[in-house]
């Protein structure tokens, strides 16, 4: 009975047959993890020499940069290897003659594939984890989080393996296996995303990053990585890999695909080996899907021009694309069957292609109408969510803490719902010129009749202010901004950066001080009125800032708070930390500048009011001595050693001034290309008045504005 469903001996035989490629993948992954971890330690030591220590990210992808190979390469290769017998008559006959049922052969061999994938993903990660333990202090990996990450890789691998197995069950050559696997894995979501993007482009009302379940590609771990990687949204991609719902969905999809593959294997005829497809219908579906992928570009031209007549160039484009689609149709059949006669047999199914295109075109119009028709009245909306309230998060590597927290809140304030309803109605009118006059876009989740839909709304300045005002009355919203998260949670750490995002202190050495500074900021936040506190948070661009790095379910998040006199206690503490770090470095940097023959110098002059002047200089022995060099703000100017000597003399004059609130703070960053280590060195200076050498900077760029504010020296 057991040999009907699963056979342990056959499973072991499967393990043996796959052990060579599996060991190869394990070694490659483990070695990469080992070398990456060791390399990062060496890199860190290199920074330490210059007094810069960057905390090392210890997430799964950081420790195992090629871990995606588990599902991208290992899963399809092992599956193709395990079921290779389906592509050759003699091996197909062998495995169909043995005393195990077809389902038993499938489950036993698939279990072998799954076991090897588990060994590769967990084994290689374990090697990386153990390596990090060999360098205490450099890494702070979270074992549980790494295991979740490995499990998600395994689940993604299982999904790809089941998809490949399904493809092998319906096709009979290596080429058709590969094509069918790619189609099953990516075609449905790829086509869906393409058409969603068309509707999004045409309506400007939806975003493909916010499609409802199950259309959202991030719900599937494999498409989350592939399409997420293409879109460049690394943080969302990593979040999906740790997301419980994505893991469960992909696992469920894998189980369904696995059951389908087992069923198809049971039904598969041995004689299908070496044939492009197990049946004429299966062959036609593969060919049509491939050609439809090309034809959908023709559909997109037709769809995008639906509000006007097609010009001759567009018509030509449509015809060419349809011709290419037909060529792809025949080319696939020729490559898969290697018989000219097969082209004639395949010809009738080509007639389905125009029908599919018409269906797609109709579907697009239907989808557009549905999107535009969504204009719920305020009373029909049960709640809204604001997905990118701050909208200034341009960093795709990490997620803004406040945005992330706010998007989880459900707002049901009647005034807010009315405002959102009004915006939705305005957007649905299709008046794109009106959109342009509106300054701000926001993605909102709107729940009506138990279903949440995501829309982009366009706001005027006063509408945005009104939304913020209404939100301020919400207790949960207030709590997000005033009750800042604790910094003591394992894995959290602080860095301070200059206005340009460059790290300005060896954060590891000053971690305790920085965490103390953050603690002061938390207290200051609780005391300030919410509007003022939010205003401070929303205006960080020209200010140095403290960033609390938070890891949440594998995702790196950041919480940025500026150092500003508006937060006097933390600002004073910041000055004290900088002074502590810079006091012994000033003489060093002055000497470096004097000796510098080739390198970069950056200077920021920050007033107490948060105004910021910037200068960039490129030091080269061959530079012409440019007397106007100080005029070249916001760009590179070439300076020679004469000028660096003047700069060093100026710094010599202010090197003993302690950093303090109320004075000009000068942040000097240099990079000496001739030094062994060519990284940036940052030191802070202070001056009660702007040094004479730097006067032209003021006079040229910011004179009027500074005068207005009365800070002109």
């Amino acid at each position, binding site marked *: 009975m057991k040999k009907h469903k699963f056979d342990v001996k056959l499973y072991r035989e499967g393990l043996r047959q796959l052990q060579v490629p599996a060991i190869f993948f394990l070694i490659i992954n483990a070695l990469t993890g080992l070398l990456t971890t060791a390399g990062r330690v060496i890199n860190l030591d290199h920074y330490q020499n210059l007094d810069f220590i960057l905390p090392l990210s210890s997430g799964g992808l950081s420790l195992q940069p090629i871990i995606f190979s588990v599902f991208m390469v290992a899963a399809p290769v092992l599956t193709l290897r395990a079921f290779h017998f389906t592509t050759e008559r*003699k091996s197909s006959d062998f495995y*169909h*003659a*043995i*005393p195990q*049922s077809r389902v038993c052969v499938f489950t036993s061999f698939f279990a072998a594939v799954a076991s090897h994938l588990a060994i590769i993903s967990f084994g290689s990660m374990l090697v990386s984890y153990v390596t990090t333990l060999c360098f205490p202090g450099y890494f702070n990996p979270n074992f549980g989080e790494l295991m979740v990450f490995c499990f998600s890789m395994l689940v993604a691998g299982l999904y790809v393996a089941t998809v490949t197995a399904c493809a092998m069950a319906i096709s009979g050559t290596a080429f058709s296996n590969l094509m069918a696997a790619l189609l099953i894995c990516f075609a449905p979501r790829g086509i869906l995303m393409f058409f969603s993007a068309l509707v999004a482009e045409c309506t400007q009302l939806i975003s493909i990053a916010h499609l409802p379940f199950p259309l959202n590609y991030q719900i599937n771990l494999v498409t989350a990585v592939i399409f997420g990687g293409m879109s460049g949204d690394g943080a969302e991609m990593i979040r999906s890999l740790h997301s419980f719902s994505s893991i469960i969905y992909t696992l469920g999809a894998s189980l369904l695909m696995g059951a389908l593959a087992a069923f198809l294997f049971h039904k598969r005829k*041995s*004689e299908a080996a070496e044939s492009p497809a197990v049946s004429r219908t299966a062959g036609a579906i593969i060919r049509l899907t491939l050609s439809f992928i090309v034809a959908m570009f023709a559909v997109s031209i037709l769809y995008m021009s639906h509000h006007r007549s097609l010009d001759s160039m567009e018509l030509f484009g449509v015809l060419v694309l349809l011709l290419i689609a037909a060529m792809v149709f025949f080319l696939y059949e020729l490559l898969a069957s290697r018989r000219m006669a097969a082209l004639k047999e395949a010809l009738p199914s080509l007639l389905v292609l125009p029908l599919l295109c018409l269906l797609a075109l109709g579907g697009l119009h239907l989808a557009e109408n549905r999107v535009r028709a969504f204009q719920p009245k305020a009373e029909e909306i049960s709640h809204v969510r604001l997905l990118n309230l701050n909208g200034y998060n341009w960093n795709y590597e990490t997620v803004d803490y406040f945005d992330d927290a706010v998007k989880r809140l459900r707002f049901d304030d009647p005034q807010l719902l009315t405002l959102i309803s009004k915006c939705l109605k305005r957007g649905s009118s299709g008046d794109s010129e009106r959109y342009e006059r509106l300054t701000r876009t926001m993605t909102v989740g709107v729940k009506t009749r138990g279903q949440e839909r995501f829309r982009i709304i366009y706001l005027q300045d006063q509408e945005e202010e009104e939304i913020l005002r209404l939100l301020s009355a919400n207790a949960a919203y207030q709590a997000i901004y005033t009750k800042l998260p604790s910094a003591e949670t394992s894995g959290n750490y602080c860095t301070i950066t200059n206005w340009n995002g460059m790290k300005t202190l060896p954060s590891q050495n000053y971690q305790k001080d920085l965490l103390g500074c953050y603690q002061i900021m938390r207290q200051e936040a609780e005391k300030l009125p919410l509007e003022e506190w939010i205003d401070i948070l929303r205006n960080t661009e020209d200010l140095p800032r403290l960033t609390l790095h938070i890891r949440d379910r594998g995702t790196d998040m950041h919480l940025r708070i500026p150092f500003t006199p508006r937060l006097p206690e933390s600002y004073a503490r910041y000055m004290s930390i900088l002074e502590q770090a810079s006091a012994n470095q000033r003489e060093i940097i002055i000497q470096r500048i004097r000796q510098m023959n080739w390198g970069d110098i950056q200077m920021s002059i920050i007033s107490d009011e948060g105004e910021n002047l910037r200068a960039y200089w490129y030091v080269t022995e061959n530079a012409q001595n440019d007397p106007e060099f100080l005029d070249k703000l916001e760009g590179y100017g070439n300076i020679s050693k004469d000028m660096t000597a003047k700069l060093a003399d100026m710094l010599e004059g202010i090197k003993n001034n302690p950093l303090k609130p109320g004075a000009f703070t000068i942040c000097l960053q240099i990079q000496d290309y001739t030094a062994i280590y060519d990284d940036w060195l940052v030191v802070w200076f202070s001056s009660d008045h702007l040094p004479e050498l730097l006067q032209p900077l003021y006079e040229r760029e910011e004179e009027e504005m500074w005068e207005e504010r009365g800070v002109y020296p």
Partner: protein
Amino acid sequence: MIETQNLTKIFQKKPAVDHISCRIPRGSIYGMVGSNGAGKSTFLRLITGIYRPEAGNVLIDGQPVFDNPSVKSRMVFVPDDLYFLPGAHMERMARCYSAIYPSFDHRHFLQLAKSFRLDTKSPLRNFSKGMRRQAAIILALSCHPDYYFFDETFDGLDPVMRSLVKGLICQEVTERQAAAIVTSHSLRELEDTCDQLALLHEGGLLLQSEVQNLKTSLFKVQIAFNRPFGQHDFSGLPLMNYEQTGSVAQLIIRGEKDETLGRLRVMNPVLLDLVPLSLEEVFTYEMKQLGYSFEDVLGRGGEEVSA
């Protein structure tokens, strides 16, 4: 007992096996001859459960074969086109077989490998065609199944090995009451081994009979008289064929040998010789009777008969 009833398999709208019904008892070797494309291999693939029949059924000891592990565990198939794991040697294949076949006997495997003088640690890809075939036969015999299926198995074997293999198969059949179906496109290969013979042509079973019956049912007589004579003189006899060259005639007769010879002696011939018939000749005359030309049906096999 292997039993097929109206077994039919269709490829691209053409029947590769067309309503074949047969019964093969245990303890016998069933030979199946036919030209290339006659349906021998397809018949074996149907009987071993590799192919699912379009119509009819295959029963082994009363149970269907297709996707039935309990029946398949008692049979082993050595196809014409052999399959070995990539890069494998015989020892590796033996491990694979022991994982697949519950009755695989590793000691027997080693003994057979020694008898055939094959290196079990040498990669099979380095073996000659004949050696690979020997390896496949050794692996099959080591499984000790109740049913053996050999497709064109003797091709590529030298006479010594062919004799050894035939001996081993006969031993399995006689000692363990196993049954074997052996196919070949050459009747001569099967003549001395099989208990039953069948002739396949274009997917259909033209003829099947026990070899002993075939050999005794027909006989050839050379006869001459010192007077003019013709076929009409033998009208009372069950003649299958009549040929006369000058004063000597050759008669192929179906019937009781002694009684027929007695009736011929009464006609006072000057020459009366009983000439032994080869199995090819028996097949030739039997098929002629059915309206087929043996040369057409067996192709090269037919040519061998003519030669």
